[in-house]
C-alpha cells in the first residue's frame, strides 16, 4: 500500500519551503505534494521515496506529522478516465477524503492518490474492477 505523510502546518508563508528543505537535507525525493487548506492551518501531503526516514527528519524540525495508507491508482491518459474511476466510490458507499494526481512519464499515464477510510478494502474492490493499484515499492520506482 502507498504511504502518504500528512504534515500539520500553519497557514503562513515559508512552511512548504521548510518542508522541502528538510527533505532535501535528508536526501529524500518528493514524488508528489498536495495541500489541504483548513483556515488557520493546513495539511501538506507528501509521497516520498523513504517515508519513515522522512517522518524522522520532519519531526526533528518540530513538525507534527503522521503516515497514512492511501490508494495509488494508475489512470490511462484518456478522456473520462477519472470520472469512470471516481464514480465507483459512491457506488461502493465509500467517501473520498482527499485526492490528487500526478503524471508519470514511465507509465505513460498518471497516478491518482486517494484517501479513504479503509484503503485495504477499496484496493481489493478496485483491483476487481481491473484497476492497477500500486504498492509503495512500485511508487518509489516510478
Amino acid at each position: 500500500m502507498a504511504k502518504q505523510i500528512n504534515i500539520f502546518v500553519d497557514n503562513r508563508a515559508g512552511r512548504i519551503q521548510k518542508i522541502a528543505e528538510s527533505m532535501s537535507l535528508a536526501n529524500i525525493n518528493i514524488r508528489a505534494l498536495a495541500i489541504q487548506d483548513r483556515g488557520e492551518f493546513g495539511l501538506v501531503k507528501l509521497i516520498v521515496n523513504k517515508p519513515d526516514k522522512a517522518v524522522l527528519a520532519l519531526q526533528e524540525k518540530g513538525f507534527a506529522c503522521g503516515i497514512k495508507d492511501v490508494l495509488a491508482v494508475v489512470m490511462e491518459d484518456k478522456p473520462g478516465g477519472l470520472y469512470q474511476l471516481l464514480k465507483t466510490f459512491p457506488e461502493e458507499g465509500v467517501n473520498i477524503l482527499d485526492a490528487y494526481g500526478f503524471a508519470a512519464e514511465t507509465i505513460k499515464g498518471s497516478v491518482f492518490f486517494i484517501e479513504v477510510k479503509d484503503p485495504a478494502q477499496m484496493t481489493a474492490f478496485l483491483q476487481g474492477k481491473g484497476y492497477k493499484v500500486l504498492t509503495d515499492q512500485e511508487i518509489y520506482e516510478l
Partner: protein
Amino acid sequence: MKEKIAFRDAQKECIDGQALRKYQLERLKETVGHALRTPFYQHRLNKVGIRSSDDIRSLKDLERIPFTTKDDLRESYPRGLLATDMKKVVRVHTSSGTTGIPTVIYHTQEDLDNWTELVVRSIVACGVTSDDVFQNMMTYGMFTGGLGLHYGAERLGALVIPSGSGNTKRQLQLMKDFRTTVVHATPSYMFHFSSKIGELGFTVEELNLKKAFLGAEPYSENTRKKIEEFFKIDVYNSYGLSEMNGPGVAFECIYKTGMHLWEDAYILEMIDPETKKNLGDDTQGELVLTTLCRQATPLLRYRTRDLTTVVKGNCPCGRTHRRISRIAGRTDDMLIISGVNVFPSQIEQVIMKIPEVGNNYQIYLAKEGALDKLTVKVELYSKLFSGDLQDLERLKRKIQDELRASIVITPMVELHEPGSLPEFELKAKRVVDERIKI
C-alpha cells in the same frame, strides 16, 4: 514517599492561635506607630480617629483602617510612604507597572533580615537544607523574585548559583557541572527547558534536580504535574509580591496543600472585591495584607488584587499559619468578554488537561461589530498527531466544548504548529486584547 518535616523555627511556625493573635496585636500597634510617621498614613489614620498606636486596642480595630491600594503607592511616590530616616534605608525596590508611574518599597537592614528569615523558613518547609545546590534562574535587580530567594538560600547555607534568567544552554551546563538540586524559575521558563533539553544535548537523567520553586506568573495544577513528571522533581508553589517584600509571603510545605501565609509577619484578610466586606475562610475573595515587621514602608490593609481562598482545616505538617490556595486570578487580570467575567487561568486549566495540545497558548480578543470575539490559539502536540484531518477537527470541537463548559462563552479555537506561538522566558504575555484600540 514524603520527606521529613523540617522547621526553621518550630515554635514560631506552630504557634497556637491565641498566642499568634496576641503577637499580631503587639506588632500591629508598632506598625501603626511607624505608619503614622508617613504623611500618607498620618492623613489617612487621623481621619478615622487613629492618632497614636494606643488607639489600636484589639485586632478588631484593624477594620477601622481604610484600605491601601496600588494607586495610593503611586500617588505617594517617591517619599510619601517612607516611615524612617532615609539614612536607615539600605535598599529600594521600585516597580514601573503598566501605567508607567512607579511604586517604591524601602527596606532597612532589619527589614531585609526579616524578609530573608521568612524566605529561609519557606524553603526549609519544602525540605531544602544547607546540603542543597540552589540555582536561581529568576531575574535579579529590581525584580524581587531573584534577590529574595538568593539571600534566603544563602543564609540557610545552601550553595547558591546566581545564574539569573536566560541562556538556556549555560543554565543546563551549570546544573550538570554543579549537581544543582533546587531551581527557582518561572513555569514558562521550565517549559522552555523541557522543550530544549534534548536539542541542547542534555538529558534529565544526567542532571541531579530534586525540587523547583516556580512562581512570578500564575500556573495551574496540571502545569505543575507536567513539569514534575518531565523533570522527575517536586514543584512547590509560592506567593509573594514586591509590595510585601517579594517572595516568602506564603509558601507550600512538603504536603503541597496550599501555601502557608506567615501570619506572624502579615495579617491576612479576605474581602469581597466589589463590596469590600470581610469574608470568612473557604470563600474566594481578594487577599488583603498588613505588614507586621517592616519599618521603612509599613503597609496597612494593602489590597493585593489577588483572588484566593483560605484552605480549611489543619495541615499535616503541624504549622498553624493558615494556607491560601493557588491564586485563581487577579482582579485586574479579569477579562470581561461579552459581559462575562473570564480569568486567563480558567482557560489555561482547560488547555492543560487536553493531552493533544502543547503548553503554549494565546488568548486573542477582538471586536466583531458590537460583539466581543474570543479566539484561543493552541499548539498541536506533535507526538500525538495521527495525520488525520478528522482528528484535528474533532480536537478543535473538544477544546471548544470544554472551554464553553468552563467559561460559559464559546470561543473560536485555532490550532497551530508546535513552537509557533510566542513563548516567553519571563512572565508570559498570553492575552492580546485588540478591543482596546477601537
